[in-house]
């Protein structure tokens, strides 16, 4: 149990500082990079909120697909190898759902405005 403010709150206030206080005093390239930096912190904020639950669900699906336990990285490498070799395919129970889930999690964190992500939600992903 870490002290407060939480990591989320700290990143939030730094992003706010950049946008409200630092950026108005910057021009040209520095102003542009400050905006990119603030956007990167927003990404971190979303990751802090979304990733813990998403990762435990990812682990659960990986164990089901591969039939054993392991680290997140090892299981992912094994999954990649089995997709590459053709041992697991889109006809394998649960593979397509898993790939959609990890991808939608990434987009929810990295770029929730991306057209392909927005369209997948409109097409009923997760409903």
């Amino acid at each position, binding site marked *: 149990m870490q002290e407060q403010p939480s990591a989320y709150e700290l990143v939030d206030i730094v992003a706010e500082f950049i946008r409200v206080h630092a950026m108005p005093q910057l021009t040209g390239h520095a102003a542009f990079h400050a905006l*990119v930096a603030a956007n990167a912190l927003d990404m971190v904020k979303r990751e802090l909120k979304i990733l813990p639950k998403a990762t435990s669900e990812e682990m659960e699906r990986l164990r089901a697909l591969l039939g054993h336990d392991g680290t997140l990285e090892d299981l992912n490498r094994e999954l990649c190898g089995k997709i590459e070799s053709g041992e697991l395919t889109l006809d394998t129970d649960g593979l397509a759902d898993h*790939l959609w889930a990890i991808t939608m999690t990434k987009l929810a964190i990295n770029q929730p405005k991306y057209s*392909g992500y927005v369209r997948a939600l409109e097409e009923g992903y997760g409903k």
Partner: protein
Amino acid sequence: MSDKVNPIAAPLAAALAREIAGVNGIENLKRLSGGASQETWAFEARQGDKVIPLILRRAPGGDREKSATAAGLETEAALIKLAGDVNVPIPPVRLVLKESDGVGRGFIMDRVEGETIARKILRDEEFAEARPKLARQCGEILARLHSVDMAKLPPLRLSTAKSEIEQYFNTYKTHNHPHPVFDLAFRWLKDNLPSETPRVTLVHGDFRHGNLMIGPDGVRAVLDWELAHTGDPMEDLAWICVNSWRFGNIDNPVGGFGQREDMFAGYEAAGGGRVDPERVKFWEVLGTLKWGVMCTTMVMAFQAGDRSVERATIGRRSSETEVDLLRLLAPLKKG
């Protein structure tokens, strides 16, 4: 740079004077942003009381070494001339630099006025009349580009679907971070590899927003021939349809401005031959994956020491291509 003269200004002016009669100096030489692997400079040549707006494309730092994948600047200049001969809109090349010019490898071409920034082309009122015509125009231009006589081409790498898949698979494995969706896409590409192309042509290799100079009248010039090679002409028709180049206009597959059918019709009407939509789809999957893998190379560049925030965040854009790949290969069941 305003308080001191750029050291390449004088040799540039001298080189130009050799090709264009009456040129007695250059002004407003400035480096344009963008162009990761080649430098682009804008300047004006003084010719009596006239000024000629020009562009210099140059190897970084004037280096005369040749890179492995890039066609090379002398080759680019030759391709632009050949494309112009078959009525592809291009910026006319004024001169190719010689070693004795002392400016490095590169060439000088006319500066064509217009816009290359996708968001402006897709949103601004100025281009409203051009937009509905662009898809067909792109088809017509590509048909002519693919008609360049193979016998006249300078030496170019031949890049087949198979070799592209191998190249990007190796890059993906070098990065060594698991992307299950990339593995799915590589597997699909290997399983769905089309038969050998019935026709090997010149391929531009990077025909998309950013490399198309567009005015209110339509496409004015096809730029950046750095990735040109020979191969399957369907590659060019597909690359401009990759969702990353639609800039949010997902329902307009061609560059965010038009429909595939219009581009294909323009292509066939201008003598490009029959378009095989399945083949184009194959190349769209490959193109989407290529851009995804390229994003991961940004991560490698960042981790190797190119420490800019922008570089760092571009790496995460690979996930955008993953959702596009899934929409192509494992579409959600409509329910």
